[in-house]
């Protein structure tokens, strides 16, 4: 039942926000987001990692078809639910300082998005998963297309069609799998795990899933929608996209692709791995060239997700655990970085590195927060990025030594583009754009502080979170290896 509450609470909060009127919208949305976080923490306290899927519910949806409205939380879901509910109130709070037209719609769309994301991460029925997977797209599309930058209409349209295109392939694959289940057919994901498909069929299903998730994440060469969309969207939508929605793709790989088509993985996993590694290097090199801060972080996110995918495709314990912890870490870092870019942009009205410089002279707080998040992102030991990146690289290295070596370049390239970002914007002579730059306000600090705490928590004591997922991942790998 808790799962159902977790999904319904943001919807209810969103509806209340929508009805309440413009003056209270922000505050109500924040309360709704915090209530969601509270409920998720309450769930976490009762959660038993070893017990498999729990707090579930199941209602018949299409009675004749064995399709049900079913969700539950296992270790992998728990981690992502925590991530979603932790980041949503911060995203809402980060939007406080900007005045958006029609705020009721803005904030309620964020909450609807949260509900759909939690739905994706908890669904145990394949069609319910698909439903939420698509439904998550609609709020974020409107967020980006109504409140975005100048080119928003074209860019978001491309994003929408591109991602729908991918997920429709997944839909066909799910319908196919559904018809392969024995007896009166069922669409429970766990029933799909038991299917014995021919290698050829697994190859097709592999590609159908791969295209859907690779576009969502995105992986090379399906990433062309991403930098534009991230840059044109309002910061809250960019945070939702990069912090949480990107994880839907990685989650899909772990939940569906690996266990359902292990033979497909055997045939094509290497190719997928190569694509992921190309993405890491390609994204990093482009990030080094960027002068728009938002685009730079978008490409860095593209590079990071490539590494997560590589870890998943290695189908090893280290790889999966690394991908999961990295999802958490990446969500935290990328949201912090986008928020800092937004702070700088709102004060200087520019995001271009050539026009910035010397901010650090007047902003001790901002500099420190920025630096910590940045170091987390380049995976310095004792920060959150390190744990995930270490596990991921070791898994890729075990898979193929030379691939690990190539993927390892991400550490070097990552520090190059990140430190360049910091140096160009914060150090150097003060440019005319940054005259009279104010340091962080209290509400801005309220967003950044929890992020910083998490950076260190995950960096210093990651086993709090690794413990949640380990039994579920082990179980999953047993399935794959059988």
């Amino acid at each position, binding site marked *: 039942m808790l799962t159902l509450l977790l999904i319904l609470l943001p919807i209810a909060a969103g509806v209340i926000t929508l009805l309440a009127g413009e003056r209270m919208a922000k505050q109500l949305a924040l309360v709704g987001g915090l209530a969601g976080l509270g409920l998720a923490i309450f769930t976490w306290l009762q959660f038993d990692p070893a017990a498999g899927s729990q707090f579930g519910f199941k209602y018949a949806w*299409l009675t004749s078809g064995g399709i049900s409205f079913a969700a539950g939380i296992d270790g992998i879901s728990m981690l992502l639910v925590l991530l979603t509910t932790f980041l949503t109130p911060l995203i809402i709070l980060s939007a406080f300082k900007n005045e958006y037209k029609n705020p009721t719609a803005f904030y309620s769309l964020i909450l609807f998005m949260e509900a759909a994301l939690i739905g994706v991460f908890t669904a145990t029925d394949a069609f319910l998963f698909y*439903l939420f997977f698509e*439904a998550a797209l*609609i709020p974020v599309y409107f967020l980006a297309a109504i409140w975005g930058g100048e080119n928003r209409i074209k860019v978001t*349209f491309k994003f929408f069609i591109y991602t729908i295109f991918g997920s429709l392939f997944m*839909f066909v694959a799910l319908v196919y799998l559904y*018809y392969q289940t024995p007896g009166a057919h069922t669409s429970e994901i766990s029933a799909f795990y038991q299917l014995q498909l021919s290698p050829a069929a697994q190859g097709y299903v592999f590609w159908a899933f791969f295209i859907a998730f690779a576009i969502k994440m995105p992986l090379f060469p399906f990433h062309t929608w991403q930098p534009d969309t991230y840059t044109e969207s309002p910061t809250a939508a960019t945070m939702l996209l990069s912090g949480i929605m990107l994880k839907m793709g990685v989650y899909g790989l772990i939940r569906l692709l690996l266990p359902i088509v292990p033979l497909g993985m055997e045939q094509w996993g290497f190719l997928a791995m190569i694509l992921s590694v190309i993405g890491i290097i390609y994204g990093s090199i482009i990030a080094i060239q960027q002068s728009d801060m938002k685009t730079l972080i978008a490409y860095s996110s593209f590079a990071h997700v490539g590494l997560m995918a590589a870890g998943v495709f290695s189908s090893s314990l280290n790889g999966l655990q690394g991908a999961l912890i990295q999802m958490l870490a990446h969500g935290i870092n990328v949201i912090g970085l986008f928020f800092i870019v937004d702070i700088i942009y709102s004060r200087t009205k520019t995001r271009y590195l050539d026009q910035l410089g010397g901010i650090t002279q007047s902003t001790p707080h901002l500099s420190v927060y920025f630096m910590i998040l940045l170091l987390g992102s380049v995976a310095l030991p004792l920060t959150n990025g390190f744990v995930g990146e270490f596990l991921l690289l070791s898994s890729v290295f075990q898979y193929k030594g030379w691939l690990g070596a190539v993927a390892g370049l991400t550490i070097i390239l990552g520090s190059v583009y990140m430190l360049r970002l910091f140096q160009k914007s914060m150090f150097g002579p003060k440019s005319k754009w940054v005259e009279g730059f104010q340091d962080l306000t209290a509400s801005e600090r309220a967003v950044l502080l929890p992020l910083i705490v998490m950076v260190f928590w995950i960096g210093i004591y990651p086993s709090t979170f690794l413990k949640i997922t380990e039994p579920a991942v082990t179980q999953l790998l047993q399935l794959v290896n059988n």
Partner: protein
Amino acid sequence: MYPIILLSVFGVVTLFLGFSKSKNILLPSTLLFLAIALGSNFIEWGKGPLLYFYDMLRVDNLTLAFNGIVLISAFMIAAISGGFQDNADSEPAEYYGLMLFSLVGAIMMIGFDHLIMLFIGVEILSVAMYVLTGSNKRNLRSNEAALKYFLMGAFATGFLLFGMTLIYGATGSFQLTAIQGFASNMNPASQSYIFYAGLLLLLIGMLFKVSAAPFHFWTPDVYEGAPTIFTTFMSTIVKTAGFAALFRLLNHSFAIYNFWWIVIAVIAVLTLLVGNIGATSQNSFKRMLAYSGISHAGYLLIALTALTKPTQNAIIFYSLAYSLSTIAAFGVLMLVAKEKTIEGQPNERYEAFNGLAKQNPLLAFVLTVSMLSLAGIPLTAGFWGKFFIFTSAAERGIMWIAVIAVLMSTVGIYYYFRVIISSYFKEGDTVRIRVAPFYQIILVLATFLTILFGLAPGIFEKLI
């Protein structure tokens, strides 16, 4: 059975009501008549297959379900017609009378068990539609559309009759059961070419009526030229009845699946391509909906190609979802086009929708939901329609056709979203768009049902 009698009588009564001075009585009386017909339809629910008129008409739950869709659509269309008060030239009594008569034809097409009955049904429906298409007498386009529809339709009727004749020649009967018996006992060695030729000609005639490619050329012009209210009628009721008839023909009578499935498959793919790709290059929203109607015929043909257990539900559900969304879309179009005119003519282009979200948020929402449903996005009825279509293809094991359909769905999103983008993200003028309360109720009802069936398709499943 009851709706046929009642609607025929009501049609005549409506014509006589036209003599009265007060034109205001026509709309309420028509709605009342349709409601009575709808209620009477379900009297025979669950009473099993009943045969009427010397076994020419079969009434079973399948028939009644399709009748229900057709009558509900007709009710909603009549409700948003607003009594045809705008145009001084209009003859409301005749329009409503013809609508009621054409429904008789549609119900005969749905319930036929004898090829002559099918022919009579098709003709009653078509002749009424030819007249209604040209009902905007002083408009050249309406006249052109009526003539085009009539000439092409007459041609298609020729094919239909010719096909029936050949089938009669081969089997010696017009009765579906007899034809089925002939087809299933046919000796593969001595194949009856007359029978095959007859079937193909019959299919051509029917495929014309549902505007499947390559028999679709009349559709965009006729849909665009006809008054919008009758375009709505054509694109929902004629299509639903046509597919009910095709389903019955192929399912009940021609048990030679291996012969015709590839024909229907090729036509389905062709229809999907023509409809979707044609729709992308339109500037007129109304013309786009005409192409979208063609593409939806393609999806329904996929279900027919598969013809498995889920096909029946797929066609019923898809027709219902498609009808609801189409009525809502045309309903919004009529309101918007009337307010924004170019040179005195209603503006039916995409630009007319610019800024709709500010001018009337409710209409923008109704339009958005109907477009999402037509595009097959989850949480709308259209999604489950596509779901059932794909499952019937999967059951037959023809996944390649589902993949083509998926590719075409992506194309569909492109043109359906253009109007959403216009109404939400583009600036328009500040005209206020007025909506009569009753009109509003119908639009909200269509939207509500679309979302309801999208959330809980099980409700519908229990009904069937």
